[in-house]
């Protein structure tokens, strides 16, 4: 299986990336090389194999919903590129 330029463009849109045209060409070649290599996995029959999402037996961890110490608004805002009155400022979403 190999991917085409339009696949690269589609995936870039999904990933919220804007690629220059030479970047698209480069990624097309490199991703195809990697995916062709990954095709190797199909040599293995995994019909009866359960997937491993995690090596440990992971459980939901619940705790009581109690108020505890947390960062101040000032701390949370410390790295904000733009802020206004303790809130993250972004371009208008609604017209």
């Amino acid at each position: 299986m190999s991917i085409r330029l339009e696949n690269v463009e589609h995936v870039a849109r999904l990933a919220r990336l804007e690629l220059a045209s030479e970047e698209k060409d480069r990624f097309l070649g490199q991703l195809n090389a990697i995916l062709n290599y990954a095709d190797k996995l199909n040599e293995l029959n995994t019909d009866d194999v359960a997937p491993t999402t995690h090596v440990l037996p992971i459980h939901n961890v619940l705790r009581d919903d109690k108020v505890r110490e947390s960062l101040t608004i000032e701390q949370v805002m410390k790295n904000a590129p733009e802020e206004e009155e303790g809130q993250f400022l972004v371009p208008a979403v609604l017209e």
Partner: protein
Amino acid sequence: MTILDMNVAELKQRLKSRDLSSSELVEASYARIAETEASIQAFLTLDEDRARTAAKAWDEQYAKGEADSLLAGLPIGIKDNIVTDGLRTTCASRFLENFVPVYDSSVSRKLKEAGAITIGKLNMDEFAMGGSNENSAYQTTRNPWDTNRVPGGSSGGSAASVAALQVPFSLGSDTGGSIRQPASYCGIVGLKPTYGRVSRYGLVAFASSLDQIGPLTRTVEDAAHVLQAIAGYDQMDSTSANVEVSSYPSALTGDVKGLRIGVPKEYMGEGVDPVVKAKIMEALKVYESLGATWEEVSMPHTEYAVAAYYLLASSEASSNLARFDGVRYGVRASSPDNLLDLYVKSRSEGFGQEVKRRIMLGTYALSSGYYDAFYLKAQKVRTLIKRDFDEALSRYDILLAPTAPTTAFKIGEQVDNPLQMYMNDILTIPVSLAGVPAISIPCGLADGLPVGLQLIGKPFDEAGLLKAAHAYEQHTEHHKLRPQL
């Protein structure tokens, strides 16, 4: 011997007897950095003022005879994807060039409690994606054994800094080999603990089901001390394991009589440089002489690990790195047309090539119509790889193999071929997928460059792993070799 070449026990003893002060040690570290950094380029940020203040405070504690904590007054370097309160943390990415965390990672908190003094933050491949440090947005760290060569990666700064005697030990993170491979290339000790042994809270996530923090040191005993300081369950990380932490330094008895070693034949195959194999065979002879036995074992799914890993790790990365959107921290593109444009432009400006490549690969593998063929398939293959380990580790106490197929390669040699670059991790990736602990220790030089011996242990048996590594180290001189800088 320079004080910066001493191990934890020697340093602690000198500090206690007050032959040496923490302030002198911290100054020696910064002096060594000033002297060697032009050729090594390991650090991205130094924390001089706070380090000096902390050293003075520890000197007062030592004067009162009250400095009992594990690493009291000892300098450490920290990989730049580990969040440090008030100290710039960039992940070697432009995206986080000015990011100053407002909290400590759990390991940073624990290290402070243990008395370690952060000297600064160490270079890496951007967001820990890479095996050479050439993917850093800022600088390429050099290998102290040959500055035309890479230090390995992604914890390349952490390894080079320890090998160059800038700091006695450092922290790194390992997703597919990122502690062990640079330790191998730089001739030092690198330990990847069992997945879940060390809290990941405050480790900037790359692939959450694989990432694990661990120490890079010059001796196995030092690795035991540093692990002791950072191991254990943490309520801030629900994937940290609630498994008892034993005393690691006291496990180092030097006795490996009767130890059963399995040598996976797939790890000694065609792709492994004959000079590396020769060193591994010599190491086996040392173990034999100490009363251990070994035999060959087969781990038949080894050859599928790299393919499975790159699909899984990239998929997890594409999801984890979605948080870098230019809204709450990090780079924000100037004058975006709208909110979507803000996300797209900020990410496209902030991320480097390898990070974009992996986000693209992961997004593709998770996208509609391809999920089953790639992501799910890789998860199933992960199960088969894990079974190989379960089976081998039920028959042997440890597994022994090279850490990397070659010694350190030249800067620039592999940058245009990502797939070739990925193959450097062929012997470390399977271990990561299985989540078991492994350590790389020096086992000699080949053509003047260090070779790493990888020991792989049972889940949560870091004590047994360190014990086996320490016994070898005590009967060899390889860990005493130093690069000429």
